[in-house]
């Protein structure tokens, strides 16, 4: 795969204490109560690395989507660092 920006949507709100696990990704709490993790992912290994972290935290994965540049941060909700 080419490296690129991805949005990983997780069910519910990821508690803040765990955000350190997703360094490098922007966390967006969505209006629908779910959480988006968005950012530049260098390769498949990095992507699977994030997915494994979600699995290990027993978080529920909703979607993984590549993002075109212009659509970044156009979701509802405020970006959280």
């Amino acid at each position, binding site marked *: 795969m080419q490296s690129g920006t991805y949005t990983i949507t997780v069910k519910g*709100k990821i508690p803040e204490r765990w955000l350190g696990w997703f360094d490098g990704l922007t966390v967006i709490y969505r209006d629908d109560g779910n959480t988006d993790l968005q950012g530049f992912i260098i390769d498949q290994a990095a992507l699977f690395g994030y997915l494994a972290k979600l*699995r290990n935290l027993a978080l529920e994965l909703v979607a993984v989507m590549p993002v075109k540049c212009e659509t970044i941060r156009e979701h509802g909700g405020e970006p959280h660092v």
Partner: protein
Amino acid sequence: MVSPNVLLRTKLHPPVNRPQLVNRPALHRVLDEGLMRGQRIFLIVAPPGYGKSTIAAMWARDTATPTAWLSLDQHDNDPVRFMAYLTAALQAVHPDLGQTLQGMLRSPQAPACEVLMSLLLEELIELDEEVMLVLDDLHQIDNPGILTALQLLVDQAPPELRLVLVSREDPALRLARWKARGLLMELRLHDLRFAKCEAKAFLEASMGVTLPEQQLDALLERTEGWAAGLQLAALSLHSKGSSSLEPVTTTLRGNTRLVMDYLLEEVWAQLSEELRGFLVMTSCLSRLSGPLCNAVTGRSNCQQLLEQLWRDNLFVIPLDERGVWYRYHHLFADFLQTEATAEQSKATYTLAAEWCRSAGLPTEAITYAFSAGDYPLAENILTEIAPGLLEQGELVSLLRWIDMLPPDRRMRNPLLILFAAWCHFLTGHMTQAGQALQALAHCEPTQLTPLHQGLLKSLQTLFDTGTAQAIPLAEAAVAAMEHQPAFFRVAALLSLGQARAALGQAGQASTVFHEAYLLAEDSGHQLTAVTALANLVSNLLRTGKRLQALQLCQTAIERKAADPSPLTEVVYLALGLVHYAGADWQAASECLRRGVAVCQRLSLVRMMGPGEWALAISLERLGQSRQADQVVQAADEIARRYGLEYAVAYFQTLQAELRLLRGETAFAKDWAGLLEAKAGRLLQGAVNYVHYTYFRVLVVSGETDKARNLLNQHADSARKDARSGDLANLEMYLAWLELRTGDKSQAEQHLKTALHLVQPEASWQTMLEQTEVLSVCRESLQSFVPAGSTLWGKIGLQPSCDVSPSQSTAHPDLPEQLSDREVEILRLIAAGHSNQQIAEQLFITVGTTKWHTTNIYGKLGVSRRTQAVEQARQLHIID
């Protein structure tokens, strides 16, 4: 030397369940019913905290079937290490299991994981008792070699094996076949959720908490029946002494993680300051023991604290029955780590690394050092354990750790470059190994200890084998290794042996290989021992010491009679070569078949070449041409599959040899051109099988001067190196060549010299290579060879017969002349005799008769008896 050879026993122990832990009879029943239905593979897959390991451990505890348990972690992604643990796990329940793997596990030349697994499977199939194998945390495994081996285990699991796979994700294995046949049971998140009655019982049994119906319903809904969530809820209630779960049951929405965190924080808040400090400091340890925690926290009461945590049900899991090692539940450990600062974690990692290093737990030590980002420490520990890792064959781990160091650090450390070079060499990555060696050329030799000097020089030798400088290098390696552990001395000796053998110094090579063989045997390095033995035997044969080689093989086989290891079978490869040299084609082919088969089974592809060659020729001699072709075909396929370019050329030469034996000279002549071009490398160095084929082609093609020159050169060096076995062969080729040029008396001189060399050891293969010489010079043969000699039986000639000298006249139309014996047999065939009748009449075996008839067909260019008779009549060979 620091040995990494510590198998952590805690990995082979199921987690100890709390006595008051609620049984889950419903799940038990599901599993038991599956078993009754004949299901054999049990896949338990769910996110952390759903009680996967717990249910597996309970089932293991309650079943009458002996259970092997293996808790996997990231370090097990080394095939050699994985197989060592798997074998140890099975041996814990069946001490006899894994015997055939002895001597092959934990060796740098260990066969592929898949090969070892197939051996283990054979033993499991033999075992007529049930055994249950639990692989816990299988999601940790992503090494492709291990996954291939696991697939084999799954595919070929005998009915007696109950395989329980516990993982956070579906394993990367193909299980569809089992599923389709109804032999796979899956326990997934849905199945592992606590039902209401289970949750009720659980809360009461583990915490003595009884919740009102409504709250219980709400709790189950919020936690989605998640075991860890329930346990936390119970803890939270218990510690507060209340029976309210107000926020959990009313306000918390979203994901279970949120509930979990809320509850964790609740529990956390209730803990004493002391306990919290302890938990935070130790949160990043993968295993906990009292002494390790004392070292990390500076306290002295950690054993008591761990026991208290266990009593209070605070997410510690004992890893053994004695209460020595514990670990935190993964979810709890993750939570604790978010409470720790980066500095705290770093300090803990460093202290843990030091403690583990001194406690003889180097794998854990190095992992902690890396986690601490303490590269100098990691580098130190790695340098200490590298020789041990190399010896144990944990090359994947060794390379991975070297690569984890920052480039400037690992490229400045000559020792690590050296070990990386060895790893590359042993895994067949010659280019990388060569590059590493070149990088080493620039470093200060003073930095190297004798062990490292020895390793460096041994490796350099292996690269320079075939050149003159290889010998002093190898000698220096042997000298440097003098006081080192046996494994390393053997490695240096093998390099020296190969360096000598390549230069034709077969006698000295034999001495070296003999020493290596004895040392490897004594130190239990069985795989290395058989390698040394095979080399020893080849070199003894080159020096004409067939009887000593025979003795060695027989002793080795006797000594290993009670040893079930397939390595014993490898000795038959060597024994087969000895019988081959003795022209005992039947015995040779039987032994070689066994030896080649076991080499194929163990993928010892580099050892097989000479065995396959001798097997094909033996079969050809026995008249079994079709089987001979099959051997070549199989050998060729393997060589291609493993990308062994030199072996491909080698087996093409063997094909040419077989065609020549059948009188098909055209193919061989084509091959000669290719041989010079393509296999030039095979024609370098001391004489070997390939040379002989080449000589044969030259002679058949009439290039006698070139052949004579080459033969004389090789004979000179064979004489110089006292390689009497090689010399005898060369003399016989010279005899044949002179016969072809019409100089019979010169031929007889060569024949006499050869006979003199091979008679004492009955190395008759040398003689039988040149049937034409034997038949044309039969008269002089009779004067050289005593009547009682076994040679007469081999060549099917009776010395007492009144045989007249060669009566056959040359037939210019034939590329290769028929011998008198062949003409004699042709006459009998023409008279309508069967092979059996001919054999009886001529006092030879049916095998020898067939061999002659095959030769006759080859020379006449026919494939059937009737054609042979017709052709011979047309050429006036017979009336």
